Every structure is written in structure tokens, then in C-alpha cells.
């Protein structure tokens, strides 16, 4: 543990003013700066534990009337006692403020998923997926490269199409900024700032070397970063945008966790790799597999080979 030593002069606390306070300590506070650190260690991976629903319990009331099938209610009724909960009343307990980092009563799993923010970035253009077969119109607005009806992460049916939404008939290589979508819902929001399904691309025309391209918000891109794109078909000249889905039931689950000690300090699943390849050669699959029952280790395999196995020892230590 670190020990800090400080020497403080009491004179700095004492008043030397020419008044009644002369020679007395008039300072109220002594200020020091301290620096706190934390030594950290990764506990490693946790193990999910599934929740087990509580056994079904007999409700205290049904239809705001005491349910005599409930043993407690039955007992109370027999004794002539009546409480509000027997008539369906509930407590007025105020739940704590909702915090996505905590599990609280009256919250369902879906309350802890966050989604809906626009995600933007740069990428290379995907126009090669939207090429038509027409000689004179390599790229054509409205051309549907792909269509698919699918269910998104919220369980909503999407009539997805991949198409160029603007401008009319972009001409290669001098393209206007071309807006095209991948499996966005086929509605009037497609290719606009209001598109919330699928992925939207905006490809800018190839600029001169070191020319700066200004990205504007007309295509729904809120990220106003500028980029420089050399004249290269593989250059990064496209802005991609989509609505982020975050963690949701399609890519993760929420559950209680526990720490198994064998995984203490282990941050990823152990991976098993095979360094032994057994070449059965031309043996039939019906061959006596009982021979393998006597094998308890790799060394047995090597000794027992008898030309029955070819062991690839390249990776054996």
C-alpha cells in the first residue's frame, strides 16, 4: 500500500491580521490532492443460468372475490377475517426508477434492449450488385436487384427490396450521388431520410485525387464527415447507414449468471483442435470398430497402428 507524506505549515492557517483574530487559526479547511487507483483483474467468462419459473400458485382472488382454493384465504375466511388482497387489491409500492443496467420487478426482457439509433460509416460501393443487363443503362433507378419478404428483429414482416432509388439513370463513370438500398421495406420512405429498414448506401462520384467530398443531409446521412477518395474503383466512396438494432432477442439472451471456478481468469471459450488425423485408408466403415475400445491414449494409437491407421504426426508434440 502506498504511503504519502505531507508536511503542512500551521502558519498558513493562522491569521496575522491586525485585529482580534491575530494569532488564531482562522482557516476553515485544509486542502490536499489524493490519487486513488484500482488494480484490476478479469474474472473471466461467466456461465448463463436459466431462470426457472416458480410453480403455479393459487391466486388469492378470482374476479375480485376470495379464492377459497388458496389455503391462506380459506383459513382467513373461516375465521371471519377479510383483507384487501383477498378481493384483488394490490400494493401501492412504487417501483424504483427504471435503469437498463438493473433487473427490477415489473420489467420484461424486452425493456432492456436498446435500438433505434442511426449508424453511419464509410465503405466501398456496392453498385456491382445493381447492374442491369441493359447495354445503354448500366444502372437504372427502380431496378430491383433482389426482393425478399423477411421478418426483422422485432418480428415485423418486411417486404424488402434492393434497388436504386435516385437519381434517374446514373451514368458511369460520372455518377451523381447514387442512393440505393438493400432489403429496405418497399414503401414511400425507401431511400429517404425516413427509411428505417434495411441498409441504405449513398455512392458519390469518383473525385479527383485529394478532392474533398462534402456529404450532406439530403440523403438522410446525419454524419457530416468529409472524406477524400482517390480515383480507384475499390476506393471508399460510399456512405452506409442503417438503424442499429443493438442487443436484442435475435443475437443475445439475458439471464442470471454464475461463475464457475474452472473458468476463473479464462476470458474465452476453450477451443479444441485436433492434432491427430486418422486415415482409415480403404477400410470399410463396417470394419471392426471394437478395436478402438482398447485405445485409451494417443500413444496406443501410434503403437497399435498395425497399418490400420495412418497418423498425421505433423502437429503432434
Amino acid at each position, binding site marked *: 500500500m*502506498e504511503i504519502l507524506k505531507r508536511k503542512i505549515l500551521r502558519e498558513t492557517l493562522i491569521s496575522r491580521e491586525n485585529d482580534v483574530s491575530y494569532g488564531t487559526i482562522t482557516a476553515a479547511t*485544509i486542502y490536499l490532492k489524493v490519487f486513488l487507483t484500482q488494480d484490476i483483474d478479469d474474472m473471466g467468462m461467466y456461465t448463463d443460468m436459466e431462470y426457472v419459473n416458480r410453480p403455479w400458485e393459487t391466486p388469492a382472488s378470482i374476479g375480485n372475490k376470495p379464492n377459497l382454493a388458496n389455503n391462506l384465504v380459506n383459513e382467513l375466511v373461516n375465521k371471519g377475517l377479510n383483507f384487501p388482497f383477498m378481493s384483488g387489491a394490490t400494493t401501492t409500492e412504487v417501483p424504483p426508477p427504471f435503469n437498463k443496467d438493473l433487473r427490477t420487478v415489473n420489467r420484461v426482457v424486452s425493456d432492456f434492449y436498446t435500438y433505434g439509433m442511426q449508424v453511419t460509416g464509410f465503405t466501398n460501393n456496392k453498385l456491382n450488385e445493381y447492374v442491369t443487363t441493359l447495354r445503354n443503362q448500366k444502372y437504372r433507378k427502380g431496378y430491383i436487384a433482389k426482393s425478399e419478404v423477411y421478418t426483422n428483429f422485432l418480428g415485423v414482416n418486411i417486404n424488402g427490396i434492393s434497388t436504386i432509388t435516385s437519381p434517374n439513370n446514373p451514368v458511369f463513370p460520372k455518377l451523381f450521388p447514387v442512393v440505393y438500398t438493400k432489403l429496405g421495406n418497399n414503401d414511400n420512405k425507401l431511400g429517404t431520410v425516413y427509411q428505417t429498414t434495411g441498409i441504405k448506401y449513398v455512392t458519390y462520384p469518383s473525385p479527383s485525387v485529394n478532392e474533398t467530398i462534402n456529404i450532406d443531409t439530403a440523403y438522410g446521412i446525419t454524419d457530416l464527415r468529409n472524406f477524400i477518395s482517390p480515383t480507384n474503383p475499390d476506393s471508399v466512396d460510399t456512405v452506409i447507414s442503417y438503424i442499429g438494432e443493438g442487443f436484442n432477442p435475435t443475437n443475445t439472451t439475458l439471464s442470471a449468471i454464475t461463475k464457475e471456478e474452472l473458468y476463473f481468469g479464462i476470458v474465452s471459450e476453450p477451443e479444441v483442435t485436433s492434432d491427430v488425423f486418422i486415415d482409415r485408408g480403404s477400410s470399410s466403415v463396417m470394419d471392426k470398430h471394437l478395436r478402438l475400445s482398447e485405445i485409451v491414449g494417443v500413444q496406443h494409437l501410434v503403437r497399435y497402428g498395425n497399418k490400420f491407421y495412418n497418423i498425421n504426426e505433423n502437429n503432434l508434440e
Partner: protein
Amino acid sequence: MASGTYGTVRPADIQPSDAEIFVHYTTSRSSAGEAALTKYKGEDLLVKIANPNNTTGFEIFGGLYTLKLPAANFSKKGIYTIVIKPIEIRAKIADCGVLSTLPDVKGIIFDVNTIDVKFREKFINNGLIGYRVEYLDTNATSDTKISNFFRIITSNNKVEGTNTQMTTSNGQLAIRYLFNDASANVFCTLSPSSAPTSRPNTGNNGFPYLGTMGQNVIITNTFFNPIMIEIEMVDHDIETLAYGLFANQSKSLEDGVYTIYNFSDQIYKQYNLYEIKDKFTGKPLFEVRQLRTSIDVSKEFNNIKNV
């Protein structure tokens, strides 16, 4: 370029309420000082500092805190030893048990309603991960804390006890624990809690000790490393010595008052200068410089230089 290694020391960004401060005072190093420590709340003495990188709102600057010591309690000459350590939560183990669906998962149970109100929010699901549990021996007549013995909480969840049929016996029921967020009991798994392979878990012979029902424990966070600060309050240092060497001084030839000023020309010290003579022969015996206990304010430097 990443080299595959990583640092394990980070600036702590605790809330002041996560710490508590203890102070010990002694007048000198030859004295043992006060018998008991004085406790202060962390939120009373520690102040967070704003991170200048965030210009829109308050964001804590990790690691650096201002320690505000009340001068009324820290102004005596002597040595103050200040220890800043994570705050302790005093609790009692309500029960020890296993989970209903996973009987191999052992742990200890706390009743949140018996915890101090200001700490209850920490007993949320997995809010105690990384906390340290230390044990008290309530049967001991002195030094009730069991030395060199602690466990680390690896997970905690709200549970409720339920009668579960045991798989080893016919019709035998036992209390096991089910997860239930509406419950006020918290099930904590600890580490180490596995028996060594040489002494398997049969008969609990090799099972590490996790605690017993009703045992008092101390739960402490591990958010920062404890530090100790030794503050020595002194009357003189190089600054006051400099007053005597370099600051203004005056000697009243009328009444023999010798005045030393500080660098702000305020009276720092005053002395009476006089001579002791033999009362019969008048022979000078001693020249004396005696510290005055009362200040003659007429010797203010501004008064003197304007004479």
C-alpha cells in the same frame, strides 16, 4: 502497435460514499497517540474533480480527488495518519444453501432488510460482484475478525427459498433457492468454493468454508486500493525560516521591541530586547531576547515606515 499485454492499474472513479476515512493523531513520534481512530464519512471529506475533456456536463476525473480536512480537527501540531479505504458493510449471513436447479452451486444468503439502508441499493442483482467478504468470530472475546481469511463474491442474485424434493431420498424435502427478483434475499456465490480434487466434496470434508448461518461478516468493495497519508503539522518550515532571514524586521530603540515580519509585512514574531545588569555594580551581565506573548500592534510595518 498492440503488444498483447495490458495494464492492470486504472485510476479509480469511485463515489465519495464508497470510501471511509480513519484518522489517528499523535503529538510526536515518541508518543503512541490517541487510543482510537476517528472515523469520517467519505462524502464529507472527499470531493470529485471535473474532467475538463467533457465541456457539456460534469464527468468525474478518474483518480484525482480533493481531500477537504476541517481545520478545526487538523490544526494541532503533531502527526495525523489518514487512511482512505473502501467502506465496510456489516451484515449477517441469513442462511447457507444451494440453488434448486443447480445443487452444485453453493452460496450464502443475506436478508437485504437487515442491511443498513444506505447500502441496500448495492444488493441488486450482480451488484456485489468483486466485493470481498471477511468473517467475524462472534465467539471470540477479543479481536473478533478472523485474520488472513476472505472470500470474493462472484455473483449475486435475488432468490427465495422453496421446498424442493431431494433426488437422493424418497419424499425428503429441503430448502433450496430459486431466483426471484421480487424477493428481499440475495444469494451470493463466493470464490473459492470448490473442493480440491484430492478431497472431493463427499461429507464436506474438502469443502472450503463459506460461512455459517448467523455469522457476522464484513462486505467491502474493491473499487480502489487503500492509501495512507501521513500529515505532519509543523510550526516551522523553510518558509518561516525565510521570514527570519529575508523578510523585513524592526527594532524599536525606545522600548526594545524587536519585530520580525512575514513577506506580507504582517507581524510574525515580536521579542523584547533588554539587558540584565548587576544591581550593585551596574555591570552588564546578559543581553536577552525574549518572545513576547502579546503583540504590540503599534509596531506594524506600515506604521513604522510612515513615521
